[in-house]
């Protein structure tokens, strides 16, 4: 038989209300092939794959497996057709061991034989080069180990088609390499693998073919070897894009924020910050790198006054005033002193914005209590909202439309725009470009650079090391709540930072 593909999707369309998530998508993958599914946020990659995994059901079109049309109505159906998806957010039971999680939900005959089970899991792991202890509990595991369990879960169920949704987002460079080795081993074993990603360098490195999505449509599938990163970006965005971040030399840098011996223990008694010390200079972008949960969030929140630190000092030296210690001051006092925080959490709204309110009311968070009397005046906030709407090209039907209903990128523009509008002398931002498409990301980088040129001390917590290396002047690397190193972003390499990110995790385990 010719033209029989491991998976083939024909004319798939999926809509959510008025939003068209996928439109007439035709796509196939063959056995023994790694395919990257590349596209900007909101281009419908995950939706498309969720239809293979049985999470959504297509409105139109059909799915063929090994040439036969099938109907996938639930994740169970997907497994029955040997399709397994590893989602971005892991679905594991914390108090169970790896092996227990792997067999969870399977209806196997007889009693559970733990020894045999562990051996079976071990056998699969060895076959593809995973490192795993089947009897380790999930709560003792690192993110990368948990991901391994998720992949094994899928393999144990006999999946021949594996879909990985942004698998490297949470990994260090070294862990990413290990994952890629495993993926190659699976490919050589004849499995079809689809990786959802928006990192171009990874597409080049791991995949054989790349399918590019744009606005819900499948633009083109090309052999990875025959395409450059620039070409992929253009296919993805639909027009020419400049991929360079301008980096100016800091002008007249002076210490703006001097953090020393900062320690913080959270309410569960876990030490989240351990003797952290660094200096942020004016006119400079200080990057903060680290595996997710290494204390980045706690550091910024401590500086912003949202957490009560155990120990240490945060000396703030404003342009035209005396140095003062921010420790012990209220969040409001710190903000009024000119230290601003734009934190973009996983759900993008969390701390900086009120989802059910429109732009105007969200602008008011900045100045609501500077007004006199019991009444609240929205004029100023409305003007600011209109400015941001225009200047940052926020896509919203109305400036009073609830920000929760805006797309992720627009929510971030609103948040970052508001923080920058205060002309802060310290601007802290965390994950400011999380999940943003390339164009919007570059708008945000520009905004950061402008603040730097205006003489602000910018602290930029980021996930993508390539971006950190291109945008920042120096990079502070955190590991397990400690500063494991501060490097010059102009000379440092990704591997160097990767090592610092892992520096003492071995000791901890």
């Amino acid at each position, binding site marked *: 038989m010719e033209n029989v593909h491991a998976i083939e999707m024909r004319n798939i369309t999926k809509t959510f209300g008025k939003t068209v998530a996928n439109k007439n998508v035709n796509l196939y993958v063959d056995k023994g092939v790694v395919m990257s599914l590349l596209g900007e946020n909101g281009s419908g990659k995950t939706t498309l794959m969720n239809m293979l995994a049985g999470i959504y*059901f297509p409105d*139109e079109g059909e799915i063929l497996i090994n040439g036969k*049309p099938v109907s996938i109505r639930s994740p169970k159906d997907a497994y029955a057709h040997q399709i397994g998806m590893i989602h971005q957010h892991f679905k594991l039971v914390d108090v169970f061991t790896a092996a227990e999680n792997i067999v969870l939900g399977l209806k196997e005959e007889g009693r559970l034989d733990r020894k045999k089970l562990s051996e079976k899991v071990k056998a699969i792991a060895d076959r593809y080069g995973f490192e795993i202890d089947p009897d380790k509990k999930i709560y003792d595991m690192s993110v990368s180990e948990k991901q391994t369990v998720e992949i094994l879960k899928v393999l144990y169920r006999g999946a021949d088609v594996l879909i990985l949704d942004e698998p490297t987002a949470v990994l260090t460079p070294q862990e990413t390499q290990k994952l890629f080795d495993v993926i190659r081993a699976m490919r050589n074993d004849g499995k079809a693998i689809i990786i959802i990603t928006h990192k171009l360098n990874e597409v080049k490195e791991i995949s054989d073919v790349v399918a590019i999505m744009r606005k819900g449509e499948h633009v083109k599938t090309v052999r990875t070897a025959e395409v450059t990163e620039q070409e992929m970006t253009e296919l993805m965005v639909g027009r020419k894009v400049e991929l360079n971040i301008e980096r100016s030399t800091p002008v007249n840098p002076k210490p703006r924020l001097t953090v020393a011996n900062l320690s913080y223990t959270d309410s569960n008694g876990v030490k989240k910050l351990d003797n952290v010390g660094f200096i942020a200079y004016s006119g400079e972008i200080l990057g903060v790198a680290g595996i997710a949960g290494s204390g980045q969030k706690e550091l910024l929140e401590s500086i912003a006054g949202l957490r009560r630190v155990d120990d240490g000092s945060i000396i703030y030296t404003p342009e035209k005033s005396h140095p003062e210690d921010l420790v012990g001051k209220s969040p409001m006092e710190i*903000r009024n002193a000119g230290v601003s925080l734009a934190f973009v959490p996983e759900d993008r709204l969390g701390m900086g914005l009120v989802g*059910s309110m429109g732009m105007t009311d969200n602008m008011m968070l900045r100045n609501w209590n500077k007004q006199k009397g019991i*009444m609240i005046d929205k004029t100023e906030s409305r003007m600011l909202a209109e400015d941001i709407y225009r200047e940052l090209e926020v896509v919203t039907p109305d400036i009073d439309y609830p920000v929760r209903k805006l797309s992720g990128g627009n929510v971030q523009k609103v948040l970052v725009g508001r923080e920058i509008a205060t002309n802060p002398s310290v601007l802290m931002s965390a994950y400011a470009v999380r999940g943003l498409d390339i164009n919007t990301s570059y708008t945000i980088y520009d905004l950061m650079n402008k603040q730097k040129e205006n003489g602000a001390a910018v602290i930029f917590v980021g996930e993508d090391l390539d971006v950190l290396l291109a945008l920042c002047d120096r990079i502070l690397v955190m590991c397990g709540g400690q500063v494991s190193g501060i490097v010059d972003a102009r000379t440092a390499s990704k591997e160097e930072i990767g090592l610092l990110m892992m520096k003492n995790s071995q000791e901890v385990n």
Partner: protein
Amino acid sequence: MEEKVPFVRVTRRQDFKKSSVWMIRILAFVIALVLGCFVFLLCGVSPLQAYAEIVKGAFGKMTGIRQTVKIMIPLLGTALALAPCFKMKYWNIGAEGQITMGAIGAAFFAINFHDKLPGAVLLAVMALAAMILGGLWSAVPAFFKSKWGTNETLFTLMLNYIAIGIVAWLQGGPWEGKEGSQIVPNFASNAILPKIGGIYCGWIIVLALVFFMYFYMNRTKHGYEIAVLGDSENTARYAGMDVTKVIVRTALISGAISGLVGFMLASGANQTIYSGIAANNGFTAITVAWLSQLNPFAMVLISALLAGLSKGSSSLKTAMGVPGSISDIITGIILLCLLGCEFFINYRLVFRHKEEKNV
């Protein structure tokens, strides 16, 4: 493949138009009325006649309207009291107790000071005492929640029974009228709210409260703080709000208004106090508040509807001999449909055959 498509699927609606939202609500109401017909038919009564009797009983004559308004006053007042709490996602289900405590505060001055104070001053003192007691009864669980994270739902609920217990004790003890009667004697005439338009003047107070609450929730800093806090506590903290203060203050205001309702029930509607004085208004008001989506003006409509049903059913009982429980069933069906239709406002059912048409 076709027969494998799920028969019915649930999908989230996007950008529902305001007009169609109201269409769905009206439709739900009509469906409820149709379902109610079957109940009446089972009792051997003509449904149309029964509905007509309800409307006539509630809004037909001036006396009927007065009765309806009398039922409506505490219901609307309490719903208004609950609105800021619910907006803040603070689940105060203790309005019943806060009303009762308010009634105690009012009764204390009515019983002990009616011969020492002139009418207007006495009424003002009674109202103030009711608001303070109701407010404190509500602020205590709020304080515990913000300081130690206790569950306000359980806490406020439990306080209801304590308040009712206190009145039961007063009724049989210190405030008992004739020995062994377990009844508090009627208040002196200067401790009773004057009538305006044939109904005690509480209706003017609640109408004023409607405007006050709308203004408070939408135009003041307090209202803004409540809205932010209700959406995200972290955001509120980040914006420099004093979360403890806002929670306690809002609960205090809410309790004070409930207390004021208690004052009106004691001084206006009942002219005395007894353990059942709150008469479930604290719970029914939760339904009113949610059906109105916390909008004070919508609350006027919804509470009028519920009060009308309540009054209409009792005249139905006398006019057509339909058991009172039947009217409760009708009210239940209407509430079920109105609350249930919210699901269809947010979600849509997609049936299989419809999809085939699309293909």
